[in-house]
């Protein structure tokens, strides 16, 4: 099966953003924190391609630097949620019985609670900041992975090669590490890739609500929030939003294509 042109384009966009994030200090035409009160609220021009904000900071430079926050945060939140979820879900599926009942009860509960409200309470309680926003997303999301991994483990356990391994006297630990884990890992990776765009979006939402980094830090969600009071100066909010949109679309397409290529079983999800 060949990757579609759309998937190739999306992969290119993701790679481009990764490169932009890595090279932001070299590429950005201005310091992201440099204020210029005289040149504040200036529209897009040759000097400031994407205009300046209420403090005269260059929006292009801030968007480039913002990628250095959003991309790692999105990846970290998903990896942490997937690890925690896989651990709980894997054990629930493998050990079963009481632990399984308890784990599934807890996930039921967490899934009924809207993510943003949960994350809101957690960040409000832990204090605002990037690290706590990541923790909040992780806590809100691990149940999805736990449910998913549990289902996979239950299915794999019944396979013949696992039954054979049991018959040959392999220990639980060996079966879990050698036979079960490798067979569920690829599905988890696919689901996680699909979620990165969503995580970037959720982090930007929290940041928009004022629960992310402090306002001077160049972060996309808080840049958009700063544009709320300047509806006539449309460029302040529009460009950071386009940055988020392009990145999440690209991650979603890459995730979809990866799923179709590696794991057609998941198509229905």
């Amino acid at each position: 099966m060949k990757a579609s042109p759309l998937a190739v384009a999306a992969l290119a966009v993701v790679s481009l953003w990764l490169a932009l994030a890595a090279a932001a200090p070299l590429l950005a035409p201005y310091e992201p924190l440099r204020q210029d009160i005289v040149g504040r609220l200036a529209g897009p021009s040759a000097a400031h391609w994407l205009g300046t904000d209420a403090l005269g900071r260059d929006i292009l430079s801030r968007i480039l630097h913002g990628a250095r926050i959003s991309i790692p945060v999105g990846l970290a939140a998903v990896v942490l949620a997937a690890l925690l979820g896989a651990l709980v879900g894997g054990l629930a599926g493998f050990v079963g019985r009481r632990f399984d009942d308890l784990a599934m009860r807890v996930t039921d509960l967490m899934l009924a609670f809207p993510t943003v409200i949960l994350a809101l309470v957690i960040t409000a309680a832990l204090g605002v900041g990037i690290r706590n926003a990541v923790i909040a997303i992780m806590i809100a999301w691990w149940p999805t992975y736990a449910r998913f991994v549990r289902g996979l483990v239950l299915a794999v356990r019944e396979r013949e090669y696992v039954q054979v391994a049991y018959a040959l006297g392999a220990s639980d630990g060996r079966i879990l590490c050698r036979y079960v884990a490798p067979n569920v890992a690829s599905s988890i990776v696919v689901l996680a890739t699909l979620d990165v765009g969503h995580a970037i979006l959720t982090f930007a939402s929290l940041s928009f609500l004022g629960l992310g980094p402090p306002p001077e830090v160049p972060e996309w969600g808080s840049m958009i929030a700063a544009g709320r009071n300047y509806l006539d100066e449309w460029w302040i909010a529009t460009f950071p939003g386009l940055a988020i949109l392009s990145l999440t679309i690209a991650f979603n397409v890459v995730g979809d294509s990866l799923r179709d290529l590696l794991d057609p079983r998941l198509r229905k999800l």
Partner: protein
Amino acid sequence: MLVGITLLTFLLSHAVPADPVTASLGEQAAADPAVVAAFRREWGLDRSPPEQYAIYLWNLVRGNFGVSISTRQPVWLDLRQRFPATIELAVVAMTLSILLGIPLGVLSAVKRDSVIDQLTRVVSLVGVSVPIFWLGLVALVIFYAGLGWVPPPGRLSATLTAPPMVTGFLLVDSLLAGRPAVALDALRHLTLPAAVLSTYNLGILARLMRGSTLDILGEDYVRTARAKGLAEKEVTLRHAARNALIPVVTVIGLSFGRLLSGTVIIESVFAWPGLGLYAFRTATSLDFPAIMGVGIVVATVYVVANLLVDIAYALIDPRIQVGQ
């Protein structure tokens, strides 16, 4: 389930390092031990956690949600005022996404790889990827600041008075009160936030419906229907679309939770006086009686939405019986 939600919020409120005393009294008052002691006694914070939880549950059973620390009103009253605003918004948004998303999905599957199919796929991709707080702002820039087609954020124009509260839904209440002008104004305020809120679900539903319809169109009974000489329209609507709806309906129920998450953001952008804005304000001031109230209401809505989905199954597919 509901007991679980109260326990979850309660545990969270006691596991946090932040202190609600400082959050609601302010640094200065919190420095005075007498004020702090009085505050703790007033809100029952001087008791042990299990005692506090038992008191809370006992009050809850009698319909008492406690008093909000930030609004100083009974939480029940706060919720009653704000809940209908959010449900009105959410129901309209959900209806929009169903009415647009499902036909788009079917059309897209039937005319596979046509222009309309490509367009639907783009719409659904953008729908699930777009940050709604940004879309809301862009919509305000275009339709309010630019074109002047929609009124400023809020639920009703400042010049109009709200009709007496019966259901709490402004559209219904103003019609009941015989004031169509108010209903029209409320509708004008509602359109933009509801449209923005519906984008994610629209994307998801169109995409699922497309996939589901494509699967069904490959089934034997569809071929049989065609072989019988049924019109293509008949085959699509009676045989394919109806069966394709079943997995989609499940997702409608599950996505209601996500829609309520979205209201937190949309209500903040559009100054919509609903549950989402209340959740945001009370959560940031660590007003736990209020947050627990919101949690209970939201979880109830989620459970009810999924119950409605179970009933909808039976309507779509007579083979499924409720209660089995």
